């Protein structure tokens, strides 16, 4: 398969039609697409997946819903049609594949997957292919199950890492896909076909053989037993598939609800926080109410303080005046008694005429009587006033009230914000029945246990069938000599088919062994070329097609860096391409993310040779136009840049 042109319209970040061509001329077989994170590199990979297989996967290989495929800006402009066209060549034919998604009739504004119709059309060499044959035609060109080896992304790398671990459901799935890519199912189908032919011949032989003989009866009996056992095996296998299918369906449904469950958990947490804030708010309100009786004094605190200061100043002034009055009064008394006695009242000496004149002058000027009682009254009034003010000024709850009030305001705003967030979250998951999800989860657990049980029962039944089959084969061989001429041919047929079945059985194991060896050899070659650690001797493949790194003493390297994992994954891809002879197309999304500069240079030089056509979706951090491009410049046939228009819109620009 070789890509020619990709047209995307309203697909994820691509509003309106965007066109890319993938020319391959001479040795130039690399198409380079540069784009920063969140611009739409993986969306291009998904556009290829969608046009081919009608599905889009996000992180952890989860399916992306139709409503999320539609470009947000297009939806806003009420343009709800998504279209992706891909032209490509394969096996000498030119194909044009178009997939379209549009709202169903009578749906004015689609809101979920059920509101869309999706359809595909395909032309081979200009001739339309009937709708019901499109899927099988694509299956012949690049089956979805092996497309993972052509469309390589980071998620796939994680899956490859699991291959070296113990067998898991996921590693079994990848092993199956790898074996499909390598053609193992062809031989397995052959084995099944021979087994079916053998079964028919055995029945024929039993019917046509010597029915009267005891041996024939025993054979018939054994064959009946075998049929019963196989019928039971079929019943158990069908039950196993049906339970597995129900489990997978439930799994898909539950995956859809994961978001709802996560939102539910956040809602619960949010509501608990709101309840806590409401308690805080109520406490603040209660505190404000309990402080409110003192608010009146808080209002007057500055007036009271000013008045207190004034009263203290006046009191001090009055005290000074009072003391001055008392002193004058005492001096007045002394002077009067001295003038009356003619001698000083303090020292008892006779007054001189000058002293008498001075005392008389002062007495004529000062009359302190009457002032003392006035000052005394003032002092008492001021002291009372001050005492009262001092008592009041001590009580002020203003700052505590304001603090409580601000706490109330803050929590009220926080509660409103959280309530708004709660409304938004509720809108995100309208009408989700959490009880139903819980029931489905319980059912899923029950089915998982049932699957384990059935798996063991199927294995036991297989062993039982194999035992009966062996017994029957021995009977057939023993009877073959004594058959009449008419039965001899059938007996030989049975013997031949038995031998053929054995050959097929061994061939499947042999093929697997040989293919593993081939993949291991090719992957080791690639690994040695790409790794910068020369102490590594190569890779060893396990039953799951996982690749272990071997050191220079052929020991397993148990701790592998992220970069080493990536090199091993690339080596596996290359090894599979060589083993399956299908190295046509390789589209790689962010393939250099984990590599250091040296590894990056090695891989960049090697990549163009890994397939006939290589498309690299990279960001500047992986391949710098200035620093790294030189390694691959002479192999680049086209280069594009994904430019950001807005958070919901990008465009593809040819460079």
């Amino acid at each position: 398969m070789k890509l020619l042109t990709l047209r995307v319209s309203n697909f994820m970040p691509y509003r309106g039609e965007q066109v890319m061509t993938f020319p391959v001329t001479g040795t130039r077989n690399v198409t380079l697409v540069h784009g920063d994170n969140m611009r739409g590199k993986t969306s291009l990979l998904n556009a290829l997946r969608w046009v081919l297989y009608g599905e889009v996967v996000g992180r952890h290989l989860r399916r992306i819903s139709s409503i999320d495929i539609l470009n947000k800006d297009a939806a806003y402009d009420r343009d709800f049609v998504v279209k992706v066209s891909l032209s490509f060549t394969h096996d000498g034919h030119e194909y044009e594949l178009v997939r379209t998604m549009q709202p169903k009739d009578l749906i004015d504004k689609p809101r979920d997957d059920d509101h869309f119709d999706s359809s595909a059309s395909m032309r081979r060499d200009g001739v339309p292919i009937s709708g019901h044959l499109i899927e099988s035609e694509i299956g012949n060109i690049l089956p979805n199950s092996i497309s993972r080896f052509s469309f390589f992304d980071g998620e796939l790398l994680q899956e490859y890492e699991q291959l070296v671990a113990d067998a898991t459901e996921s590693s079994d799935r990848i092993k199956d896909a790898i074996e499909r890519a390598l053609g193992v199912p062809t031989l397995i189908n052959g084995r099944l076909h021979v087994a079916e032919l053998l079964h028919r011949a055995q029945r024929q032989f039993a019917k046509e053989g010597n029915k009267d003989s005891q041996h024939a009866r025993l054979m018939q009996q054994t064959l009946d037993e075998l049929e019963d056992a196989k019928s039971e095996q079929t019943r158990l296998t069908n039950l196993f598939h049906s339970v597995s299918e129900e489990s997978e369906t439930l799994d898909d449904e539950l995956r859809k609800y994961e978001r709802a469950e996560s939102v539910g958990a956040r809602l619960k947490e949010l509501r608990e926080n709101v309840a806590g804030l409401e308690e805080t708010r109520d406490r603040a309100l209660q505190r404000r109410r309990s402080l409110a009786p003192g608010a009146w004094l808080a209002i007057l605190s500055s007036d009271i303080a000013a008045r207190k200061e004034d009263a203290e100043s006046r009191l001090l002034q009055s005290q000074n005046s009072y003391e001055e009055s008392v002193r004058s009064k005492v001096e007045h008394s002394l002077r009067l008694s001295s003038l009356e006695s003619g001698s000083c009242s303090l020292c008892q000496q006779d007054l001189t005429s000058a002293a008498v004149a001075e005392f008389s002058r002062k007495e004529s000027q000062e009359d302190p009587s009457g002032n003392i009682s006035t000052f005394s009254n003032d002092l008492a009034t001021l002291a009372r006033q001050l005492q009262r003010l001092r008592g009041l000024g001590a009580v002020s709850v203003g700052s505590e009230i304001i603090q409580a009030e601000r706490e109330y305001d803050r929590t009220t705003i926080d509660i409103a914000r959280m309530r708004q967030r709660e409304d938004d979250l509720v809108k995100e998951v309208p009408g989700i029945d959490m009880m139903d999800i819980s029931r489905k989860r319980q059912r899923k657990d029950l089915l998982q246990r049932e699957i384990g049980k059935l798996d063991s029962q199927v294995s036991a039944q297989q062993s039982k069938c194999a035992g009966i089959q062996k017994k029957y084969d021995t009977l057939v061989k023993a009877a073959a000599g004594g058959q009449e001429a008419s039965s001899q041919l059938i007996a030989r047929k049975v013997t031949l088919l038995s031998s053929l079945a054995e050959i097929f059985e061994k061939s499947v194991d042999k093929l697997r062994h040989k293919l593993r060896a081939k993949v291991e050899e090719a992957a080791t070659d690639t690994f040695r070329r790409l790794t910068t650690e020369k102490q590594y001797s190569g890779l060893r493949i396990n039953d799951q097609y996982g690749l272990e790194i071997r050191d220079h003493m052929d020991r397993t390297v148990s701790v592998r860096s992220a970069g080493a994992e990536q090199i091993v994954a690339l080596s596996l891809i290359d090894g599979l391409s060589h083993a399956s002879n299908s190295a046509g197309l390789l589209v790689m999304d962010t393939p250099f993310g984990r590599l250091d500069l040296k590894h990056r240079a090695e891989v960049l030089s090697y990549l163009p040779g890994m397939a006939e056509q290589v498309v690299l979706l990279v960001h500047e951090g992986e391949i710098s136009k200035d620093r790294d491009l030189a390694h691959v410049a002479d192999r680049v046939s086209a280069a594009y840049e994904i430019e950001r228009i807005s958070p919901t819109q990008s465009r593809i620009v040819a460079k």
Partner: protein
Amino acid sequence: MSEEERRTLGASEFGHGVLKRLEADGIFPEMMDAYRFAIALGLSKGRRTPFTGRRTVFNVGSFDKDEAVSGVISALMEVEAAQVYRVAEELAETGFQMIAPVVDAGEFRFDDFLTSV
């Protein structure tokens, strides 16, 4: 001629409505607390608002047991002792008029009064 000292405190119908609302909204535990707050607002502005239609709301004895309110009024205004509670009513009326708009709007906040005086 000096007037007889008041034994009760009163308010206008309007003021009485404000008091009831402040108590009902849980802003003050009792109407007396709200009345004192209204007096304090009037005092802080130094403004008395005469009114008609007086309605008795409290006894002076229970309202001002420790004479703190009368003491503050006397300290901050030159008022004769016999006139203190009459003045208190007019000061409270000033307070009611300041409080009423925010109470009506449901936006009463002590912060606004405490930081503006």
